[in-house]
């Protein structure tokens, strides 16, 4: 087998590992298998992205059927970046899961968690790689169902309610998406994204196209938790096992945001999205209210995991603002933030997961004085928190900086001010965590006052260091985001 099969292998390997995990049932062996497969997908992503940059988009025909008749995989600059985020962050979080799962999921059920993890990885990668509209729906459902299962494995029974709401919202979203796809098919007779995009141009004024657009964006918007379609998110994030929360926050929502970018800029095209439909105003309103309102809600949360969950909705707001600007600078900022936020939030949720090992909870009272007995974990929380705020020399600074530049490019000074205001609100809630961790006495009920094991700290610090690295050396991330944005908006390289 040569490199030509890499696009499909990346998706099929996790899929192959899932039934094997189910049969092995031994937690450690399942983890080894999952980890090997996950690392393999990461290697493939790296090869794919470098191939795309060297020789243009890769097209792979499934079943050897040519495109509009069969399903094709199409890897370009945009989705190769998302594939890299999903497989990269997914691998580090899986490394973390090995250490953290034992504290949350019964040993006899851990193999199910890994099976679900593999299915979810397969679904997410499949959604990114595919060039077929209906295929997106199928893989969306694979990732969603496996995600429901992972959340339901959470040890608190509130996880069940959280999953049920998530399932209902997710299914409504997927069905909206399906309605949109049906309408587009009725008008064009095809499901292939590239083919569709060409055939939509002459009929862009049709009410049916507008409706299809609305249903598709609404459906994916629910999955991406774009404000005000986010209300399933805080509970789902809160009650999932910690490693699943990190996966959910850093890959699943990012893939949904990717799909919004793909549909807005590629399938319907910026001409349609921003001229025929007043998408700029809609998205800007959603993004700005997410940033301000959800950050404010986060400030008043006493449960840190929920605080960071609301913060995720706010951060998706930043990406939505970037998308709404309809310019290379805006899309670059959105993609940069997608990458950086994945690195930031996974570090934060993993730090919380590490703290949980000793504190047994997520309330702000429980982490008091943690800086004294868990210095590494608390330091990780500090660095990743500052990165979330957007302090210079961290990854979070880079994306916010480019978002502000993009806003100024459009003469939206007020928008730049809102971005800064959002950061100040972020500082307010991150500060609450830091204050509790460093300046409060240790509560009495904490029995084991010592640092967590290396199995948790090593993956955590990989991501913390990544936060610093991508804050200082921006050439890789900025180059990839900028390249993808230029390709999307059809600007010659």
């Amino acid at each position, binding site marked *: 087998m040569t490199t030509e099969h890499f696009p499909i292998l990346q998706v099929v390997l996790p899929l192959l590992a899932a*039934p*094997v995990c189910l049969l092995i049932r031994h937690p450690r062996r399942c983890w080894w298998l999952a980890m090997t497969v996950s690392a393999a997908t990461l290697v493939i992503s790296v090869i794919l992205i470098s191939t795309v940059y060297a020789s243009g988009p890769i097209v792979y025909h499934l079943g050897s059927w040519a495109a509009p008749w069969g399903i094709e995989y199409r890897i370009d600059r945009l989705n190769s970046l998302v594939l890299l985020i999903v497989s990269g962050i997914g691998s580090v979080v899986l490394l973390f899961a090995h250490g953290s799962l034992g504290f949350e999921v019964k040993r006899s059920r851990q193999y199910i968690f890994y099976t679900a993890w593999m299915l979810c990885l397969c679904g997410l990668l499949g959604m990114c790689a595919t060039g077929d509209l209906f*295929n997106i729906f199928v893989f969306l459902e694979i990732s969603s169902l496996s995600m429901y*299962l992972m959340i339901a494995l959470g040890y608190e029974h509130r996880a069940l309610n959280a999953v049920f709401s998530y399932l209902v919202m997710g299914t409504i979203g997927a069905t909206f998406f399906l309605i949109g796809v049906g309408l587009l098919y009725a008008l064009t*007779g095809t499901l292939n994204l590239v083919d569709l995009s060409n055939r939509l141009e002459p009929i862009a004024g049709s*009410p049916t196209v507008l409706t299809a657009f609305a249903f598709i964006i609404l459906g994916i918007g629910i999955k991406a938790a774009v404000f005000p379609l986010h209300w399933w998110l805080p509970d789902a994030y809160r009650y999932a096992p910690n490693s699943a929360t990190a996966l959910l926050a850093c890959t699943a929502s990012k893939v949904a945001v990717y799909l919004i970018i793909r549909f807005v800029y590629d399938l319907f095209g910026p001409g349609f999205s921003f001229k025929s439909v007043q998408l700029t105003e809609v998205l800007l309103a959603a993004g700005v209210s997410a940033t301000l309102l959800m950050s404010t809600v986060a400030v008043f949360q006493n449960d840190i995991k929920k605080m960071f969950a609301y913060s995720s909705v706010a951060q998706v707001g930043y990406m939505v603002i970037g998308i709404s600007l309809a310019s290379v600078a805006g899309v670059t900022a959105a993609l940069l933030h997608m990458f950086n936020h994945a690195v930031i939030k996974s570090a934060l949720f993993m730090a919380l997961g590490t703290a949980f090992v000793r504190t047994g909870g997520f309330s702000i009272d429980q982490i008091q004085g943690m800086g004294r007995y868990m210095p590494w974990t608390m330091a990780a929380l500090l660095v990743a928190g500052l990165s979330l705020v957007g302090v210079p020399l961290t990854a979070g600074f880079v994306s916010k900086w480019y978002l502000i530049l993009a806003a100024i490019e459009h003469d939206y000074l007020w928008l730049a001010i809102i971005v800064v205001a959002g950061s100040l609100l972020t500082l307010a809630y991150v500060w609450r965590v830091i204050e509790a961790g460093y300046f409060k006495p240790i509560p009495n009920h904490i029995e084991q006052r010592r640092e967590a094991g290396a199995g948790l700290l090593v993956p955590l610090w990989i991501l913390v260091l990544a936060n610093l690295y991508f804050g200082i050396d921006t050439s890789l991330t900025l180059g990839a985001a900028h390249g993808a944005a230029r390709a999307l908006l059809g600007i010659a390289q």
Partner: protein
Amino acid sequence: MQLNKLFSAVMLFGMYSLLSAALFVSLDAVDVALTEASVGAGIATILMLGALSLTTNRQRQISWKRRLPAALVTVAIGVLLLYGLSDLPVFGDPAAPAFKHVYPRYAFESPHEIGIPNMVTSVLASYRGYDTLGEVTVIFTAAVAVATLMGHGSDTRSFSGEGMEHHLILRINAKLLLPMILLFALYVQFHGDYGPGGGFQAGVIFAAGFILYGLVFGMSTIREVAPPKIIRILCAAGLGLYLLVGLCGMLLGGNFLDYNVLAHHPVHGQHIGIMLIELGVGTTVAASMIGLFYAYAEHEHRQ
């Protein structure tokens, strides 16, 4: 009409589903009708009834506080959809775009290219075989999820679940019916190339036969025939078979799920490929459905 008993709501849903299957027949979608009848009116309704028996039949009145926003959202979405449907091609119009671009190849070339008359099977298993792989994965995931949520995944729990020992007529009828059901399942499985049917429908029918057996002769008998461990292995094996067929295409020099390379002649290769993947679909679906039944039964027993 306000239905206070959920039972009536579920039964109405089952009837509705059966009627929509009839509608699908009149719209020339026989495969879909067969599936809707066995899945919507069959499995989904049974699952809902099962859930009712494990929870409660009563429901509360819906408060106005909930009704109003729900109605507003619903109307808004409904108006949007009406607006969108206004520009669709006329129903049944042969000149509609849906019959122009991709369709001719499926309708007029697939009988030669793939070599089987049922175009739905051709598209399902070959042109868009990758979607079907995803579909099998979805069923697999759901089976794992339900078993985990309800059964706690143990093999050792013994069952005292009695059958209907005293219903002689029922038992004799079930014994007579069972071979027919299983035979019909096999027919639907292997005749899917020529008539409506295929792995999915066959799997559901096969599972229905098993479930009937379990209901009449008791859970312990059916668990002797098909222990949960075997069911779990079969569930994984069906998906594995599908994947292996795909990988074989790759190893023999084609792309993933390329059946042409499976034999010397492409049409022959398509035949082999479709038969194998349909077998995979049937296996996983049947095993999953039986697994769902076990999960519900086990949960009931524990309570």
